[in-house]
């Protein structure tokens, strides 16, 4: 037995597997440590603090950064989300329609608006729409414009998400509903869509996070003082004080919302995983 064992084992050359693994890990830690040290040594911390972390400038931003800027950011985001959700739902249903032209139109919409930078759509809504329809006002002033622009952008993504969610509901659900006498529309509304939304809640929340950040593009619409959101507010203050602390504070305000939201999404995803198991 022992004879065959040694005969079968190839002669070891150089490092064993364990030694290789240890070495590889050691190199990775060393690179990481070197990068951190290099960053810490080469950065000019004094100037950085001077430019980005002036306590008195930061203090001066409150409470407006919350009561005005963050509030507006949240308002823009939510209104854009609602418009996007409604529009996205319509487009998703068009995409699943048995009527050809509806499907094509929805497909074209999705491809166009997924392919364009959000910034272009903001400019389009801010400039092109008033030019194209002179005399018409988008209701709600800046708020309406932002809701429309963000809604147009997010609807394309949400339509695809909603469509995937609807298709993820097992076929038997529609059959069961139809066999009970539900019309296709009623079955969609009371049976399929509620289940689809459970499936797509995590990606929809992710979309909310994306919109939250995209709301900074309001910058390009030209807004009044009262309509400023976090980015514009931070930038304005940064230029009047000639200091970048407001940018940092505005950034922290974004994270204040996006990090908990991402956390919620991860919780929902792991819960959904458990439900499958």
């Amino acid at each position, binding site marked *: 037995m022992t004879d065959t064992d040694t005969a079968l084992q190839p002669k070891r050359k150089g490092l064993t597997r364990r030694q290789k693994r240890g070495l590889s890990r050691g190199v990775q830690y060393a690179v990481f440590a070197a990068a951190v040290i290099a960053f810490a040594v080469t950065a000019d911390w004094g100037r950085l603090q001077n430019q980005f972390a002036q306590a008195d400038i930061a203090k001066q931003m409150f409470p407006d950064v919350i009561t005005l800027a963050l509030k507006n950011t949240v308002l823009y985001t939510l209104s854009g989300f609602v418009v996007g959700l409604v529009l996205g739902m319509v487009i998703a249903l068009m995409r699943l329609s048995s009527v050809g032209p509806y499907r094509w139109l929805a497909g074209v919409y999705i491809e166009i608006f997924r392919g364009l930078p959000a910034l272009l759509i903001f400019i389009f809504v801010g400039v092109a729409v008033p030019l194209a329809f002179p005399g018409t006002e988008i209701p709600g002033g800046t708020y309406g414009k932002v809701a429309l622009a963000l809604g147009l952008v997010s609807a394309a993504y949400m339509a695809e998400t909603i469509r995937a969610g609807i298709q993820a509901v097992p076929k*038997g*659900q529609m059959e069961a*509903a*139809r*066999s009970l*006498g*539900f*019309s296709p529309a*009623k079955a969609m509304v009371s049976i399929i869509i509620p289940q689809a939304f459970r499936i797509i809640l995590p990606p929809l929340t992710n979309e909310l996070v994306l919109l939250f950040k995209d709301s900074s593009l309001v910058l390009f619409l030209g807004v009044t003082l009262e309509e400023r959101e976090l980015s514009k507010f931070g930038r304005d203050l940064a230029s009047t004080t000639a200091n970048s602390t407001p940018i940092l504070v505005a950034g922290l305000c974004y994270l204040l919302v996006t990090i908990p939201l991402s956390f919620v999404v991860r919780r929902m995803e792991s819960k959904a995983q458990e*439900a499958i198991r």
Partner: protein
Amino acid sequence: MSRPEIEVRGLHKSFGDNEVLRGIDLEIGQGEVVCVIGPSGSGKSTLLRCVNLLEEPTKGQVFVGGTEVTDPDVDIDAVRRRIGMVFQQFNLFPHLNVTENLTLPQRRVLGRDKETAARVAAENLARVGLSEKADAYPSSLSGGQQQRVAIARALAMGPEVMLFDEPTSALDPELVGDVLAVMRRLAREGMTMMVVTHEMTFAREVADRVVFMDGGVIVEDGSPDRVIGDPQHERTRHFLSRLLDPAMAEVEEETSDQVGKSEP
């Protein structure tokens, strides 16, 4: 027997080039229990699904309660209210609890008020012996319990006919009995039932008639004692012998899984 409750005339159904039903004629009288048996792929489930138009027949007619289901102008939703259907995979609505599974269709489809719907739901849950699960969600129920809820959900709509599509095939063997007991009781109460099944004991004991299908046609149609007890056709005998004693089956060149293959 007055006019048949279910009547199928010259029914054909193809999926692409695959002709699954090749001319089915069948009548089921009021209060009759008919079990449809046959090898998988013989078209028995497709036939059942054609009765409430979940599958659109390629050719032929289907009448339920005197109404032509296959008429392009028929209000199919209205017809389906009279036809209860139970699926192999239960298909309960997972986002609703047991009571809501029973009340939502009544309210949305029949327009019943909340109290009536709740009362009918409770009655039918009692009928299938699951009153204590009224607030449970489908995912917390066993397969047998889910299937009984599915039966109760169909019954709550007050159907005149019940279709069962292999209702016990997805169940663990020890859970089959509860579902069959509910169906047996339903049969005794005089419900018109069309049951696609592999449960020969049930067919023998409960059915008024057994229909054996193979290759998209009805091969034999008669009393259970005749079709199961004393089959006249070789194909039926072959199928039954394999079903009753699977261990005795020989390896074959042809599988009866495929439609249209003739037996050796």
